[in-house]
C-alpha cells in the first residue's frame, strides 16, 4: 500500500532546512503553490536559494517569502512582473542575489538536473551578457554555450489532482515548470485540489508519474494570487 499523503501543508514542509535550495513551480500566478509557500513562511527556514520563473507579486505567496527575508538568492528568468515590488526593493538594496537565466535554459537545466545529465549545449544567449564566463563550443559551424544541470533539495509545486501514488494531473497553463521541477529535487512536495485512489486516473493521461513525487497535501480550494493581491492581502 503506497500512500504519499500528508495531512497539512505545515507537515509537508516541516523538514526544509536553512540554506536549502528550493524549486518553486508557477509562471506568474498560474501554478504558484501559495498555501505551501505560506506554510514555509510559518516554518521559518531561511537563507534559501529559490529557483522559479518569477518572484511573485504583491505581498503573498512567493513575494511574501522574499519579503520575510528568507531568500538569499533567486535563480530566475523574469524576477519582476505587474505588482511586483518586493524583489526589486531587496535587490536594489543588495539584500538578495540574482542569477538570471533565459527561460528555456532554465527549463532545460532543471530537466537535465532530473535526468542525470550534468551539462548540455544551447545556442541560447551566445554573444549576450548571460553567456559571459561560460564555456563556448562550436558544433557544425555554430556556436553554443555549455549550461549545467540544476538540482534542488526541495521542489514545491501545485497540481490539480493526485492519486495516492503521487501521479499528477495539472490545470491548463499552471502545468508550466511543475513536471520538470518534480524530477529535479531530493524531495518533491505537491499541493493538489483533490486526491484519489490508485487507478482512478487513466494511466495514459498522467503528466507526472508518482515516482517523482514524495509528498501530496490536499488544498481543496487554493487561493488565487491575483485575487489576494487585488484585495491587498499580506502574509503572514
Amino acid at each position, binding site marked *: 500500500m503506497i500512500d504519499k499523503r500528508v495531512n497539512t501543508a505545515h507537515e509537508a514542509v516541516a523538514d526544509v532546512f536553512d540554506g536549502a535550495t528550493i524549486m518553486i513551480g508557477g509562471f506568474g500566478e498560474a501554478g504558484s503553490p501559495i498555501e505551501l509557500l505560506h506554510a514555509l513562511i510559518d516554518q521559518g527556514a531561511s537563507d534559501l536559494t529559490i529557483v522559479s520563473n518569477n518572484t511573485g507579486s504583491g505581498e503573498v505567496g512567493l513575494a511574501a517569502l522574499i519579503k520575510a527575508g528568507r531568500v538569499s538568492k533567486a535563480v530566475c528568468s523574469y524576477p519582476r512582473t505587474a505588482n511586483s515590488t518586493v524583489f526589486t526593493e531587496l535587490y536594489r538594496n543588495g539584500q538578495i542575489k540574482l542569477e538570471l537565466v533565459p527561460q528555456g535554459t532554465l527549463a532545460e537545466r532543471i530537466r537535465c538536473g532530473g535526468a542525470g545529465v550534468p551539462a548540455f549545449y544551447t545556442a541560447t544567449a551566445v554573444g*549576450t551578457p548571460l553567456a559571459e564566463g561560460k564555456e563556448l563550443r562550436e558544433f557544425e559551424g555554430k556556436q553554443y554555450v555549455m549550461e549545467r544541470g540544476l538540482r534542488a533539495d526541495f521542489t514545491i509545486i501545485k497540481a490539480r489532482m493526485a492519486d495516492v501514488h503521487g501521479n499528477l494531473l495539472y490545470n491548463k497553463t499552471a502545468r508550466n515548470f511543475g513536471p520538470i521541477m518534480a524530477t529535479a529535487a531530493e524531495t518533491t512536495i505537491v499541493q493538489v485540489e483533490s486526491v484519489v485512489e490508485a487507478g482512478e486516473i487513466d494511466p495514459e493521461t498522467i503528466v507526472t508519474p508518482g515516482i517523482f513525487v514524495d509528498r501530496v497535501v490536499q488544498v481543496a480550494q487554493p487561493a488565487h494570487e491575483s485575487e489576494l493581491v487585488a484585495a491587498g492581502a499580506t502574509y503572514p
Partner: protein
Amino acid sequence: MTSNDLKAGRSRDEMAARLAQDIPNGWYVNLGIGIPELVAKFVPEDKTLIYHTENGLIGMGPSPAAGQGDPELINAGKRQVTAMPGAAYFHHADSFVMIRGGHIDLCVLGALQVAQNGDLANWSTGQPDAIPAVGGAMDLVAGVKSIYVITQHTTKQGEPKLVESCTYPLTGLGVVNRIYTNLAVIDVTPGGFGVTELSPGVEFKDVQNQTGAPLSDIRESATAGKK
C-alpha cells in the same frame, strides 16, 4: 517630415496588419508582448495561424469574455487567454523544445535596437539600477525559424533603433530576418539593411534620415523575387 514626427507612415495597427499579410497559412507563431500581440487581430480570414505561448500552450486563442477566464490559463504576458480547438498543453521543457528545436515558424518581437547584421537588443537597457529580466527572449531569437521585429522606427526621443551596431546588451547575434516599422519594411540582408517597401507617403530619404546605418533600396529585387 522630421525625426520627431513619430506618427509618420503606418500606425501601430497598420504595422501589425502589414506584417500579418506576410505570414503564410498554417504557420506556428509566437507573438511577443506589446505591438507584436496586435498582429493576431489582422490575420486574413482565409489563413489559420496557430499561436504558441512559451508558458505551455499551443493553439492559444483571444482573451476570454468577461468573467469566463481562468487565472491558470494565461499567456507569456500573464494575461488571461483561451484555448482554440486543437490546442495542447505541455510543460516548460517541452515548450522550449518547440522553440529551441526550430519547430516554431515565426516569432514577432519588439526591439530596443536592431543592428545591420541582424543583432537584436530587446531585453535590457543596461542601466545599473534596472532589475534584469530576460524571460524567453533569448531562447526565441536563438531557436525560432524566422524572427520579425515590429517597432517604431525611432525612440520617443527620435534616436534611431536601426543601427550599425547595438549599444544595449544583446538578446542574440545575427538573428533578425525582417523589420516592420512605421516607415518601412526592411530586410536584414548579407549587405545590411535593405528597404523592401516604404509605408504610404514615406520616401526613401526619410527612412534613411531616421536610420543609424546605411540602407539599400531593394524594392525592385524584392518585388521581382515574389512568386
